[in-house]
């Protein structure tokens, strides 16, 4: 079924981004890009969200926060790393105080590179994430029906 992919709600968390990527994420909501066309809503509530957009790299301060937001989200869920900082640590990779990309904290499904990441790239990444969301949902449904049979 294609129901999950028609209403992806997202939560956006700024790990330690320079704010460049965050501005681009918010730009997606403006009339220029209007992601609500695809049913995408920026919820700000992990319990309502299907897609977790993270910008910036993780460090010792925020790794717990990133993990907690991820844990609070209900299955099926998808994580998108926005910007090179979130993908790998980017220009801050070698810094003494960064741990690296978001995948150091939680499993990442889609990497959207760019410094700053373009709104088009974010939309592309979300669309790619929708496919993964569908797969996860199918897996969840299969697991549920198996449980019922057993």
């Amino acid at each position, binding site marked *: 079924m294609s*129901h999950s992919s028609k*209403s992806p709600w997202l939560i956006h968390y700024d790990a330690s981004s320079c704010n460049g990527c965050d501005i681009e994420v918010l730009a997606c909501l403006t*009339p220029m890009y209007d992601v609500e*066309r695809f049913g995408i809503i920026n919820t700000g509530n992990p319990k309502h969200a299907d897609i977790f957009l993270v910008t910036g790299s993780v460090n010792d301060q925020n790794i717990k926060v990133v993990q907690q937001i991820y844990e609070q989200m*209900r299955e099926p869920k998808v994580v998108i790393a926005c910007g090179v900082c979130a993908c790998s640590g980017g220009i801050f990779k070698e810094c003494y105080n960064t741990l690296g990309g978001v995948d150091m904290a939680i499993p990442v499904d889609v990497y959207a590179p760019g410094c700053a990441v373009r709104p088009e790239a974010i939309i592309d990444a979300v669309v790619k994430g929708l496919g993964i969301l569908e797969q996860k949902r199918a897996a969840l449904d299969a697991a549920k029906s198996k449980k019922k049979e057993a």
Partner: protein
Amino acid sequence: MFIPMLIFGLICAPILGCLLAGVDRKITARMQGRVGPSILQPYYDFRKLLGKDTGHTNRTESVYIFMYLLFVVIATVLFFLGGNFLLVVFVLTLGVLFFILAAYAPGSPYASIGANREILAVMAYEPMVLLVAAGLYLATGTFDVVAMTQASKPAIIMLPLLFLGFIYVLTIKLRKSPFDLSMSHHAHQELVRGMTTEMNGQTLAMVELAHWYESILYLGWVALFVIWKGWVGLIVALLVAALVYFLEILVDNNFARMKWQFALKSSWWLALILGLLNLGVILLLGLAL
């Protein structure tokens, strides 16, 4: 007429409510210069929520939400079956109380603030709603919805001020800006999501469903002011209800959120001035006649 109206209240009302929510989002987007989602978007959201894995911070929450949905459905069905208007009002209030309990249940600070504000909202609109019930009674001589629809002339002729006051509190009842204090359908992010902060999956889907019933029920109340016997009356009433909803969307998009103090004070003053003035005039005229 019993079976068709039962089906209308039970099945058509939420479908219409869903489409109304979709049209609302589309018009809102157009007003903001965006393309906006498909009109079926609320339905897609609903289906997705049903398919999500549901978790509970506190299990009783979903029981309360179920009771909320149940009472809202009973109120809607009662209304469209032409039952007692006062009963509809009270059953609906009971439903909203369950919604507030559900928001308190998980003990989340965000949801609790949302619930506190919802109580204030109920306090704000309830006097006006009761005056509306009294006004409709004075204008039509009955509390039965079915008898009100058979009136020889529309109630609004006798109740112009009450109608205005009711439109005002309708914004609070529909939780639209400037009075979307307890929760909001838009991307306002303060207080996370107000009352629904801890609700997810099927619980949230039930909340959405209840909203669809509610909005159609309220538009039914609006129509009740305008309707009179015959087809013309019905069509005019439907047009007025649609117009009022459009007005709500317009207000929603043009006002920033007000503080709860303003919501409470303004609606009480309006209830006092518009409502009591209107009722007083009717009573005096009635005595004079």
